[in-house]
């Protein structure tokens, strides 16, 4: 049974990448948490020394996971999920408040963050439920059920005021998409983000020759184009697409020309009228052809327009002021160099000062001198950028990309649906972390406090990712053994 030992069947590419990233992460923590001239990276009193212990534990954990029987992952998942929900409910009561959130449970010398482990458990339960035979996500009820499994822990984590960790659960929807969730949902979500960004960003900028704002004009135009495009996808071989597209463009062009040349007015009214006509048109055909698609598209058009006019209200009245500020700073509406903008500005300075080759290990001035906040946790990528430069930081990005793509490839290779779903979940979670964390540090995504896998200081995060990855590697190894 020597060759049958699953530990020897672990995917060596993933293991190598895992070790490389963890090593690079540790080096960055040395850089970020020490002052110039320090050479003691190993003692327990230092952050780097502690991280070394967390790394050791992670390796032990990884070894342990490779040893146990993979069937436990499936059978225990329900139990684990229920236990985790209970723990998440209890956490706010057990935890002390740290920086406005109650998510850390203190266990003597170390604190752990249950939310970091919840991701793994959620991935298991989702894999178990969605992996059942005949569970199709194109069925709205089934999709709702699957989504509930994800949204439940997500909601509980929001209650701990850990919005960042909660948002990570959105990454499961990428996996749902792979498993058959209608693409229109993903499309609608992306469209909503575009409406939001464009609508808010250019809300105040007037469109020359008219009384409308650029934001409103562009979003309404996009809605009419998207709606027309949807008819092409969902009602192929009909003349609707050509009619609706030309009608939308033409009406907008005529309105604009009239406003610019003859009498300026708010041309958004014409666009809204056009969208109203679109809805009526689709409903008319829906009644005639008895096709559900028409109603769905009509709802998309209506919903998009409603979204445009509520997002502004939501931004200013529903979100908390600091969140509003973060969004406005991110969109470039406000310059805030002392509050929310400070962190991003300082982190851009730190990364930008790295140049091509960086300042070298332990030579970064910006991170050493604590200009960058949270520099060994959420903003750790600054240290990479400053000390290792463009070469080092893009190498790290490419390592992450390779790891994520490898995980997706392995997931595709699974013979069980359980394994594939779980694998996609792991890859998507990693992708989301990298997307948000590095995006935040380089000023492309809002400041949302989630750790960079393997880099950010802290045991919980590292163990959480170790669990995620090695459970998958164990499943993959079992799969390989069976296929042999």
């Amino acid at each position, binding site marked *: 049974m020597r060759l049958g030992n699953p530990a020897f069947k672990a995917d060596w590419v993933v293991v190598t990448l895992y070790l490389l990233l963890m090593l690079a992460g540790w080096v960055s923590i040395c850089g970020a948490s020490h002052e110039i001239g320090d050479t003691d990276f190993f003692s327990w009193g230092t952050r780097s020394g502690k991280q070394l212990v967390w790394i050791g534990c992670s390796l032990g954990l990884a070894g342990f996971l490779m040893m146990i029987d993979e069937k436990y992952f499936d059978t225990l998942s329900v139990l684990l999920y229920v236990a985790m929900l209970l723990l998440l409910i209890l956490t706010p009561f057990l935890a002390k408040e740290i920086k406005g959130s109650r998510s850390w449970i203190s266990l003597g010398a170390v604190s752990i963050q249950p939310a970091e482990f919840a991701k793994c458990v959620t991935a298991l339960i989702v894999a178990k439920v969605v992996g059942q035979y005949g569970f199709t996500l194109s069925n709205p009820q089934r999709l709702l059920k699957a989504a509930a499994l994800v949204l439940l822990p997500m909601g509980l984590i929001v209650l701990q005021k850990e919005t960042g960790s909660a948002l990570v659960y959105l990454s499961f929807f990428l996996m749902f998409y792979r498993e*058959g969730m209608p693409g229109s949902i993903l499309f609608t979500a992306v469209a909503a983000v575009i409406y939001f960004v464009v609508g808010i960003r250019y809300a105040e900028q007037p469109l020359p020759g008219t009384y409308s704002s650029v934001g409103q004009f562009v979003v309404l135009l996009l809605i009419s184009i998207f709606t027309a495009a949807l008819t092409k996808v969902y009602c192929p071989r009909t003349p609707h697409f050509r009619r609706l597209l030309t009608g939308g463009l033409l009406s907008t062009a005529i309105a604009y020309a009239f406003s610019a040349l003859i009498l300026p007015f708010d041309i958004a009214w014409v666009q809204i009228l056009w969208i109203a006509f679109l809805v009526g048109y689709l409903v008319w055909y829906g009644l005639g052809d008895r096709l559900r698609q028409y109603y769905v598209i009509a709802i998309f058009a209506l919903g998009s327009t409603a979204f445009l006019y509520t997002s502004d209200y939501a931004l200013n009245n529903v979100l908390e002021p600091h969140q509003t500020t973060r969004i406005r700073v991110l969109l470039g509406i406000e310059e805030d160099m002392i509050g929310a903008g400070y962190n991003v500005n300082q982190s851009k300075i730190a990364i930008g000062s790295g140049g091509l080759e960086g300042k070298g290990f332990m030579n970064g001035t910006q991170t*050493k001198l604590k200009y960058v906040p949270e520099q060994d946790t959420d903003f750790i990528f600054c240290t990479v*950028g400053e000390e290792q430069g463009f070469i080092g930081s893009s190498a790290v990005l490419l390592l992450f990309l390779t790891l994520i793509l490898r995980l997706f490839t392995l997931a595709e290779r699974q*013979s069980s649906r359980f394994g594939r779903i779980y694998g996609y979940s792991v890859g998507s979670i990693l992708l989301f972390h*990298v997307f948000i964390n*590095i995006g935040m540090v380089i000023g492309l995504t809002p400041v949302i406090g989630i750790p960079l896998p393997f880099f950010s200081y802290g045991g919980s995060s590292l163990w959480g990712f170790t669990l995620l990855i090695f459970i998958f590697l164990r499943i993959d190894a079992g799969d390989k053994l069976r296929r042999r």
Partner: protein
Amino acid sequence: MEQKNPFSNRRLVISGVAIAIIAIYIIRLLSLQLLSDDYKRNADSNAFRRDVLYPSRGLIFDRNGELLVFNEPSYNIMVTMNEQIGIDTLDFCKTIGITPEFYTRRCADIKDRSKNPGYSRFTPQVFMTQIPPEEFSLFREKLFRFRGFSIEKRAARHYSSGIAAHILGDVGEVNPDDIKEDDYYHSGDYIGKLGVERSYEKQLRGEKGLRILLRDVHGRIKGHYADGEYDRDPVPGKNLTLSIDAHLQELAERLLEGKLGAIVAIEPTTGQILCMASSPTYDPRVLVGRERSNAHKALSKDPMKPLLNRAIMGMYPPGSTFKITQALLGLQEGIITPETSFPCSRGFNYKGMHLGCHGHGSPIPLVPAIGTSCNAYFCWNLYRMLSDRQHYKSQAEAMTRWKDHLVSMGYGYRLGVDLPGEKRGMIPNADYYTKHLHEWGPLSVISISIGQGEVTATPLQICNLAATVANRGYYYIPHVVKNIQGSSLDTLYTRKHYTMVDKKWYDVAVQGMRRAVTGGTCRGANIPGYEVCGKTGTAQNRGHDHSAFMGFAPMEQPKIAVAVYVENGGFGATFGVPIGKLIMEQYLNGKLSGGSEAQARSLQSRHINYGGYER
């Protein structure tokens, strides 16, 4: 047994999203790290604290090694706004002698970035400069009570005596233009404002040192950047030795008391200025410290203009001292010979033109004409030159030749003395007359031949003429700095400048100037034991005549050339001659004889009332 999954194509979409995200991020890193320099510069200003170490400014000595200007420690009070919380403001104000209103205003000014562009609440900002030692010691005792305040040691200039204010000049804080012109300076630095402090600023200031310290986000110092590899020690400024003789300067200033005017003395063999006095003067010690700006304002408002260095900025009609130049260029051009005689019947009378003279024999040749300062002689000389169509094709050409001679003697342009603000004086040329008079001939410009009319010169230029005659035909550009520690003088000041007149004609001029002392207008310039040469000047102007004198001694191997100009002093012999004599005697003998000392005291107490004259 892998079954075909209906959605397996979606793996491409998902992988595509991942690749797109990473690609966008790498492009973003490219633009942050490689395409823009701003972040790097920002990072440096973030993390580096540049501590400037100020060098000590060079000392200034007189030609005999007497210390004139030196440095004494002075203290600036600095404040770090971020740390300055909860101090007893009233106690603070009392300690350093300011009002609470001043305190509030000053704090507001410091925070105002339009007035204080380099403001940061984490770094010490200048609160007050140049605290006097008494107030300072009290402040230091209480310093521990005033959180956020600190002390910066700077040096202030001190003067051993009150002489030579115009030559020494002063230092003051740089203004925005200075900073723009030379990036060596930063707000709050000192720069020479007047005198040699300004003209030798680069040598005197030395070089600032630098400590590049690493500063964390709270402004705490974390050590030297790169182990001090880029740190520099300050280089002290170089000492200057002036050519000025402090005793001579003191005497010159004494003699000008209560008068407006200037005295310049030059060592002909080197061009070194031995003394340069301008009256009224002021005590350089008042332009020091915190009161500098008030004192400066008062001086600049004074109607007698004490800040004006009349020796180089006063443009006066040179009067009869100018006749020497006319004699020289007339001889050189062949208009006259030493034997040429002109008639003088109480002046120059020709074609209805009359220019008066005093009584003396007629006709007379050149040497006695210089001796008695005959106006007619030099009028004829110029008239002949401008009318001479054998030598010159036109009147304009003759005029140009005349001007060229004078320019070669140092008139009409700045001589280039190593002091700021020198004026060039005025030597008219043909274009000037064509422009201003349209129709002009020798008679309409005849007064320039006796140093009147459009001609003006600075006392320095007049003294330079005396030095040139003493040298028989060349001069060095006059300068007040004899020696710069560790480096040599600009070659500008060590090169001979020859005039367009031959040496032999200078011998004639010397004889004329000797005649003036032995039996002419400046008999009062005679010093026992020396052959003194001289020439008086009495320059007409709107008020009382200006009294001028230039001379040198001894006649052979001259040691000193001097020019004296006393505004509204009357005849040259009244003030010019005796003052010039005393200056030469003091320098040649190192002291004044008893009689001369009495004469000096009497001259010192003879004040001229300028109230009635328009300035």
